[in-house]
């Protein structure tokens, strides 16, 4: 690891617990790269996570880190950010963590447009508990609790975030890590709720059951299924069938919650003088 990245990690806590070929390590490195290139005050940066393989990432990162409860990371992070808006707050979460048990917190944090940078590691499965289907397991796919194929439908995470009020929404993948870094950097710059969906992969609990080959095959799947939004604009709809978009999907800044609250305080305190 490059020295400037090393200072962002707790090197003594490595090696990590993730399986060989897990996509989460690549995404974690992308987050560190983005922070490194963003000139943030590292003492004033807090990383919050829920529970899951992905939520273990902050334990390896050299910041104030808060590993919380399954699904509740955004509620904890809301407390951190509102109590001290000076802090840069990141939330690292999984597809299950953020959209199943934490789905309500997800839409409400977006609705408030609170200045949080969310990196959602989407591996389409509950990895940590051994591969049960999540709200992002594609219909028909095999999981340990959908042995006959998943009978449920999926969320479209960016659409959900946009509808709920997120002011910045983007998507990258473990294959398109350069793009992912750029998206995270842009999210950091956005003063408001920034959601970056990072397509990951779980060879152990998802790929194996669905005969998706080894980690390299899964990475290649990400490469071939993703279409950059700028390219997609020029393609006919039939070319986009079965594909997903990557890149900046939405950016519409509007007043941010903690700044608005501080304005209220200033107004009330001025009125009292």
């Amino acid at each position: 690891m490059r020295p400037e990245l090393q200072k962002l990690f707790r090197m003594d806590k490595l090696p990590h617990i993730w399986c060989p070929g897990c996509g989460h390590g690549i995404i974690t490195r992308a987050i560190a790269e983005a922070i490194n290139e963003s000139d943030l005050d590292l003492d004033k940066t807090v990383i919050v996570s829920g529970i899951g393989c992905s939520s273990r990432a902050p334990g390896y990162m050299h910041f104030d880190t808060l590993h919380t409860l399954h699904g509740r990371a955004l509620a904890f992070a809301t407390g951190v950010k509102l109590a001290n808006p000076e802090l840069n707050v990141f939330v690292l979460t999984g597809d299950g963590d953020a959209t199943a048990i934490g789905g309500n917190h997800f839409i409400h944090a977006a609705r408030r447009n609170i200045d949080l940078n969310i990196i959602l590691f989407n591996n389409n499965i509950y990895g940590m508990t051994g591969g049960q289907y999540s709200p992002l397991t594609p219909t028909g796919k095999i999981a340990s609790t959908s042995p006959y194929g998943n009978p449920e439908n999926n969320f479209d995470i960016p659409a959900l975030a946009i509808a709920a009020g997120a002011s910045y929404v983007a998507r990258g993948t473990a294959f398109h890590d350069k793009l992912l870094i750029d998206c995270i950097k842009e999210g950091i710059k956005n003063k408001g709720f920034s959601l970056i969906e990072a397509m990951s992969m779980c060879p152990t609990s998802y790929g194996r059951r669905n005969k998706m080959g080894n980690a390299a095959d899964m990475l290649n799947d990400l490469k071939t299924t993703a279409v950059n939004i700028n390219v997609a604009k020029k393609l006919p709809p039939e070319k986009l069938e079965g594909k997903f978009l990557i890149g900046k999907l939405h950016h519409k800044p509007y007043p941010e919650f903690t700044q608005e609250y501080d304005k209220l305080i200033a107004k009330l305190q001025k009125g009292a003088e």
Partner: protein
Amino acid sequence: MTSKKARLIQGNRACAEGAMAAGVRFFAGYPITPSTEIAEIMSEELPKLGGKFIQMEDEIASMACIIGASLTGKKVLTASSGPGISLKQEAIGYACMTEIPCVIVNVQRLGPSTGGPTSSAQGDIMQARWGTHGDHPIIALCPSSVYECFTLTVTAVNFAEKYRTPVYVLMDEIIGHMREKVILPNIDEIKIVNRKRPTCPSNEYKPYQIDETLIPAMADFGTGYKWHVTGLFHDETGFPSGKPKVIEEQFKRLMTKFDKYSDEILSWEETEAEDAEILLVAYGSTARSALDAVNILRSEGIKVGLFRPITIWPFPEKRLKTLAEKANKIIVPEMNYGQLILEVERICKDKASVGGLFKFNSLPITPEEIMFKIREVL
């Protein structure tokens, strides 16, 4: 300071004012009867003080939110009732495990489930002790008057800070909604306690250090200590550990950390208890009726007394045991199916006979009912 004025206020208001007087500057909650007034008052007053109020999307989010805020160094509060307190439980356990100061006000209503939103009850005594999974330490304080809603909320905030723990203020609907004339203390008369913060260099900081105080220093997020907080079992440095020896050491420190400070934590009130042959053990609004019963029966020459635990958890066990040596009979009136009586029986069973007076139909226990029960056992 302005001179003190007598005011007619509600228990819920006294609680909110106590919190702010103790330095609470962050509140997260979700509306629920009969605790809602606390949130309403906080939403109006906190921003004037430069503090923050947020109405979260549910009660576990509120609990999580105040824990996050506490980590930045703020004194924090949430308030709820019945179903809302049930929803908070997983996050309360997290605060016990990670030792994050916070105060939870429970204005008890009739349960289980939706139960009776506007009905008073004392049915959450055992939930306060054991509501979240796993062994854990907890402090719960139980006010009996509007004045005590103020003073005990101050104490709760101070205990949370000093002992790095969640603390319950266990009110009941009667206490929360009752109006009484009070003369509240001035700000400069209130003792304020702040959490211990580290002074060592960041690379030497151990957020779960085992030393003779049993209460490790806690760094504010954003001050360069870069520490890790997790609900997993962790070693002194805060990082996860599955080593049985580490788990056992940290568990022991956690479970015994209040014992060392029991002189300060335990509080109770006694009325004619020294020579009582019949001793009432009552708390919260029920203790008011018990007090009336004691005063009336004493005037008739009946040796009745009252032991009122103010700290319900941990329970003031030693003192009750001593009183039970003299009393032949102990009666525990409670607005539930019999909860604190289990603890009283455990403590007194070899010393005195213990009986209960339970009422769970939404109505308060009256002095007459208590006197009737006493005459029955005379």
